[in-house]
């Protein structure tokens, strides 16, 4: 699924909800379409084990407990719905996300990365929506940082700001690491495993 972009994911979910025969609410515009929205779009290339999706049904008394089962029945095994509930928070309440990054390196970069993270500051470059390049220090943005060896590889986990006000992509840190340390390139994978609110509580 990591090659599925956010927009493709949306279209996939529309088809899935249709296949599950949920009484989905259609927008009432010129070109009606089912109403589906994700709390926090996932970057192309990332995997995720914690996603939040809002859908709106036409029937207020619809049995909410049966929804996951219906959706799972029409989904491939690599996509699983695990809970459905009435909306609690608005999507703008998303504030952070937690990521696990695994380098396939036989722990060759473990110490280099630790050293890199010990610097006073790490300047990263981010492209803004207007197309300009913005530079900032990523270190103060990082929370709950952990780096260790796991199954012989280097394993990094961290929390970064996410959502509509401030969003920091973990790729920025990895790119900066490779660019600033001249380390040999190792394959890595990024998984997002939590979406959090401003109190670092799981968003739902």
């Amino acid at each position: 699924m990591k090659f599925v972009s956010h927009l493709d994911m949306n279209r996939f979910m529309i088809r899935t909800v249709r296949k599950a025969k949920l009484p989905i609410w259609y927008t009432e515009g010129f070109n009606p379409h089912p109403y589906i929205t994700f709390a926090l779009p996932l970057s192309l290339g990332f995997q995720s084990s914690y996603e939040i999706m809002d859908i709106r049904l036409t029937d207020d008394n619809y049995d909410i407990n049966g929804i996951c089962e219906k959706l799972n029945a029409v989904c491939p095994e690599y996509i699983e719905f695990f809970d459905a509930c009435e909306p609690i928070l608005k999507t703008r309440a998303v504030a952070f996300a937690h990521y696990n990054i695994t380098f396939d390196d036989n722990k060759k970069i473990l110490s280099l990365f630790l050293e890199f993270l010990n610097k006073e500051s790490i300047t990263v470059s981010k492209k803004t929506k207007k197309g300009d390049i913005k530079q900032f220090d990523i270190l103060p943005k990082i929370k709950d940082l952990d780096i260790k060896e796991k199954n012989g590889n280097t394993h990094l986990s961290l929390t970064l700001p996410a959502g509509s006000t401030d969003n920091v992509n973990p790729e920025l840190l990895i790119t900066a690491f490779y660019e600033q340390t001249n380390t040999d390139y190792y394959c890595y994978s990024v998984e997002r495993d939590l979406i959090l609110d401003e109190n670092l509580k799981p968003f739902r």
Partner: protein
Amino acid sequence: MGDKRLEQLLLTVQKPGRYSGGEINSVIKDKSAVDVRFAFCFPDTYEVGMSHLGMKILYSLFNEREDIWCERVFAPWIDFEKVMRENNIPLFALESRDSIKDFDFIGFTLQYELSYTNVINMLDLAKLPLKASERHSISPIVVAGGPCTCNAEPLADFVDIFFLGEGEQSDLEVIDLYKKFKANGGTKEQFLYEASKIEGVYVPSLYDISYNIDGTVKSITAKGDAPKTIRKRIETDLDNTYYPDKFVVPYIEIVHDRAVQEIFRGCIRGCRFCQAGYIYRPVREKSADTVNRQAKAICESTGYDEISLSSLSTSDYTEIEPMLEEMLSWTEKQGVSLSLPSLRIDNFSPELLQKINHVKKSGLTFAPEAGTQRLRDVINKNITEEEILNTCKTAFEGGYTAVKLYFMMGLPTETDEDIKGIADLAQKIVDTYYALPSKPKGKAVNVSISVSNFVPKPFTPFQFHPQITREEIIRKQQYLKECIKSRKITFNYHENKTSFLEGVFARGDRKLGEVLVSAFKKGCRFDGWDECFDLEKWLCAFSECGINPEFYANRERSYEEILPWEHLDYGVTKKFLICQNELAKKGETTPNCRQKCASCGANIFGKGVCFEKR
């Protein structure tokens, strides 16, 4: 190459979803548990290939069999080809990511001539010798099907087997024969020889072609007792022909991102420029019940909210209105919108328009093909100006304000009068709109005219005609531009260079194989894509091989000339095509198959419209 490295590389190219596989309804099997692995290759991008119905049918048909695993392969786009070559990644199938070099069959579908360099490139990326004669082992066998196999002589050196006509049966028969050979041992030559006895199977290496001094074909000789002529294969009963109940549903957006329901094959019309109208004869319909049942199943298994009916001329379906009625009874409830491409002007009734109005409103598109009645009679497009204007009037009254019209230029007997006729017709449509008392207030009309360049194709009455030169195309396009006075008319036209190359390969012979290799080596790929096409490279390749492309594109053929496809039998006889060409010259039309049989020869298949009660 590990999966992880490949995945990392995929993230460096455009639309990695083209190469990642894993879509809903794609088929994964245990490779140790199958006897035959088939790489179904579409020589264009994923988005184009995944939109193709024939591939969906054969993919599912093959995979229904436990002993066959059919996987999909598409031409990598330029960026990924570069990555593949730099990292030594061989062409792989999407499902297993295994290199297709080790498959039993590599099958190409040939939908248009401008995909031929992609076929060569894909064989090269698979790290196989390009020429069939240099691949000695029994596997992989390179096969090809699709409309272009009615004259795929330019690819004859590279392909082991061509399938003529519809492949549902002949493909499986060849696979079964192969299984026998694989089990009992046997050479590739023996296998091909046996395969040539299956109806619809053409083994090009079993035919010697000799040429006259002027470059035309002198003789086509079958080796040994290989059949002298090879007849195409068709399905005779579409209600009992396999149709998939599942389509692979891509994650990325493709060209036709919707369910497709085939309603009939062939076309009754006999427009004289149209290859599909002749090579798919005779017309065979599915019953309305079958159409509904199959369409429902597809919508349910895919979740698509749009279904398109597929045929060469949708409104010629005999029971179109009851069929639509039945379809609308469930599509509306399920929020599925229905689209009907390929409608003809003359039988486009207000009731039908009303019915399409029930669902999503898209633009109206018509294809008068020629600007004057005289020329429409020449090409046997049996519609009148009055019908065109009336239909537009009905459409405008129904609330449409945009009409798109398709035309061709460079048709046989065409004069500047006919070109001007295109502009005049468009103007009359604009005038019809403004003459309408009930026209929507404050809305302007837009008549868009798309003019493509006529390319003479094999197995049509116009197969004898020269294609007009590139200079003449440019002059006519310029002239038409000058004839258009109204700003309500939008004029789109087609690049002359690609049409010329298409013209060369459509009626090409085996001598062009060398040119293909040379052009491929110069970097020609995706010739149907404007951003890739480079005529200079092609002209260079022609001259290196000592071949004059105009000999193929711009030369008139006599009726006596042996055409490169003369040994192929599509039912329709050469005598009939000659007779149609003579009628065309006189501007006389031929009634459609349902009005009167024109004795084209397609009744030899013993089924279809030829045997309907009239």
